[in-house]
């Protein structure tokens, strides 16, 4: 119990520290000014989301192989948390784009691919609500999760190629293209903070799912006696 509290506290503190660093420590960007600072959240959340989905992918593979409930709990926790971070990416993109380009959505390659990613994992969660029996639900959603994840690199690749054919405004430019010294530290600190937050959220969601499983087990045993 204390481990979770510590992790939660650490996550909150780190994110607050990263926010502080993003606004007050990192040097101001020459062309975009204050607006550019959203980049630290936008990109770090994108990375945390992808990490969550990757861990979820491993959970899916492990479930199909071992058929242990805990991998299903991991899979759904990672999918939901990944979706939260991905949603932040999709919201912060337009928040940046409107003042910078005058339009909310530019169909920029990374953002468009992220949108597809978001849709894939929404489908994953929707699939889960449509299967009642727990073992079937775990297996079929794990299999869909696997198909969805292996599609992700192809989606990103294909859309990036498409965008080179039809150039459009790019949201925030490349994340590592010319990051000034002060910025680089802040950026990686933000990435670290978001990953700790991600870890905390997955752990909490996982234990919630585990509790549901335990309640079910108790209910079964009660039914039998």
């Amino acid at each position, binding site marked *: 119990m204390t481990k979770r509290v510590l992790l939660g506290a650490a996550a909150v503190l780190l994110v607050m520290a990263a926010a502080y660093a993003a606004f007050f420590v990192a040097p101001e960007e020459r062309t975009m000014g204050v607006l550019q600072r959203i980049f630290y959240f936008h990109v770090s959340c994108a990375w945390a989301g992808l990490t969550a989905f990757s861990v979820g992918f491993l959970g899916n593979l492990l479930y199909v192989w071992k058929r242990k409930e805990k991998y299903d709990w991991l899979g759904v926790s990672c999918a939901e948390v990944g979706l939260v971070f991905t949603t932040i990416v999709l919201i912060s993109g337009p928040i940046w784009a409107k003042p910078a380009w005058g339009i909310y959505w530019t169909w920029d390659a990374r953002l468009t691919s992220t949108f597809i990613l978001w849709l894939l994992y929404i489908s994953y969660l929707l699939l889960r609500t449509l299967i*009642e*029996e*727990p*073992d079937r639900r775990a297996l079929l959603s794990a299999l869909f999760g696997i198909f969805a994840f292996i599609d992700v690199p192809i989606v990103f690749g294909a859309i990036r190629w498409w965008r080179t054919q039809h150039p459009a405004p790019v949201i925030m430019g490349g994340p590592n293209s010319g990051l000034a010294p002060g910025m680089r530290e802040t950026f990686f600190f933000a990435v670290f903070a978001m990953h700790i937050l991600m870890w905390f959220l997955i752990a909490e969601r996982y234990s919630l799912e585990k509790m549901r499983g335990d309640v*079910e087990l108790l*209910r*079964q045993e009660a*039914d039998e006696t």
Partner: protein
Amino acid sequence: MVSAAEPSIGLRFENVDKRYGAVYALRNLTLAIAPGECVALAGRNGSGKTTLLRIAACLMRPTRGTLSFSGVAENQNPRAGFVAHASMVYGELTAKENLLFFAKLLGVANRQQRVDNLLREVGLGERKDSLVRTFSRGMRQRVAIARALLADPSLLLFDEPATGLDSEATMWLTGHLAKLRDSGCTILLSLHGESEIARLATRAVRLDTGSAVADTRSGATFQSVFSMAGG
């Protein structure tokens, strides 16, 4: 039907569980079936008979525990002949087309001849070129049985085979099962209550809430195994 070269198949269920969420269809089932036995499975609806048969057919995997076979190579599918509630044949094809198709998949030798012989044996020689969806329940059952027998299996699994059959069809089925039993196949059939078909069996086992609770092998009488099975 079972040649001397093919050993008959035995099965062993060890501590088998099959769980659907909170519900246990099979619970700690331990049951050994010797090669050549003809076993009747009795039990109420929901006692686990269908689940047991589907696991024996390798269509389903146990949640826990193991099912092993004797008389088949390691990790090989025993390719049982399975007759279930559903007919498992295509309504939009004729009886003959269905059997030829499955015979092709199974790699049966001399397909045409085998199919014609089987159709005649099950009494569908006249109707072999009619679409299965025009068949009565009894006739579909006959096609299903023919399909199960195509590859000359040494293990046969029947899930309540007499349901929905009229007395003529039931008589035919009883005779046919007797023949199969006498040829040395291992047979498992699930039944509701005692009937002519039940009397074919060399052994009876009663299932209740997923476990084997009575067995004629351990001394129970046929009557007692069936009488508590309910309607």
